[in-house]
């Protein structure tokens, strides 16, 4: 599979909900998520993030996050991984939806990134 998407949120419910939402527009994409702490509370967990990337089937993975520690843990993971991961500083829900829609039809990465530019807020 060309693309995969990883969602990182402080909230397990947001993470899962974003997957539900974008899966509708991109049913064939590999979409995995890491939500909350390792105890399922509000927060973030490098271990959960690692697992979300391990489980993802995409060759090129587009990653989205919500706030501070999601971003830091994600970047910590990026320093450790060999995978081809692109992290975007865009609105979580809206960015992931936009990327999923375009990734579903195997758009070039430049096309996806052009669309994401309008959603950059971080």
């Amino acid at each position, binding site marked *: 599979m060309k693309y995969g998407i990883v969602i990182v949120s402080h909230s397990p419910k947001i993470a899962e909900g974003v997957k539900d939402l974008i899966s*509708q*527009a991109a*049913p064939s994409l590999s979409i995995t998520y890491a939500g909350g702490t390792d105890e399922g509370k509000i927060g973030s967990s490098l271990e959960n993030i690692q697992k979300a990337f391990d489980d993802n089937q995409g060759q090129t993975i587009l990653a989205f996050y919500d706030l501070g520690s999601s971003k830091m843990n994600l970047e910590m993971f990026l320093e450790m991984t060999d995978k081809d991961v692109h992290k975007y500083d865009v609105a979580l829900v809206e960015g992931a*939806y936009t990327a999923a829609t*375009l990734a579903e*039809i195997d758009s070039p990465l430049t096309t996806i990134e052009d*669309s994401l530019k309008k959603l950059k807020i971080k």
Partner: protein
Amino acid sequence: MAERACKNDCMVGEKKMKLELTNAEQWIKLFTSKLDENVSTLNELDTAIGDGDHGTNMERGAKAVKEALDKQTPADLSALFKTTAFAMIQKVGGASGPLYGTAFLDMSKAAKDEADLAKLVQVGADGIKRRGQSDVKMKTMIDVWQPVADDLSAGPLTADQVDQALQSTKGMVATKGRASYLEEKSVGHLDPGSQSSAYLFDSLIEALGEK
């Protein structure tokens, strides 16, 4: 009530352009049947450029409309449209809910002192534009509603006209709704809401013809 201007070779008399309750009831009934029969067609169109649920959404709306009309026979056009609107708003669940809902709600209000079919459809089209903050050429249902409103005001509506409006959405780049996320890649596909709107106006033609 305003006089109907009948330009060109006007094939329909004054009477036929005034929408009667019995025609309108038949219209809505035929529409709900077409929605029931074409769930997968609409879902497939929406899968290509949206989230794949337009058929399921409209089926839920159609069921709610039928149930509401079965429960209470509407006293007049205004009541018929209102019932249709409320059922759509409550049960569709997608963007088409508030869009069809607003169209029929505005038509319901207008129908209190307007029975001219072309004018009513124009009121509906305007409602969709307001609710969707959209206009023609954005590859949405407006690209069926507006041409149909124009065609109705120029003479009787034909199935060819409806189909022409529907087909015109194929070449458009979507700039509103979910398909707009695809930008240029939305070209080459029919807009699902335009297809369901085509069913609506095909139903209208049948309902008027049957009388």
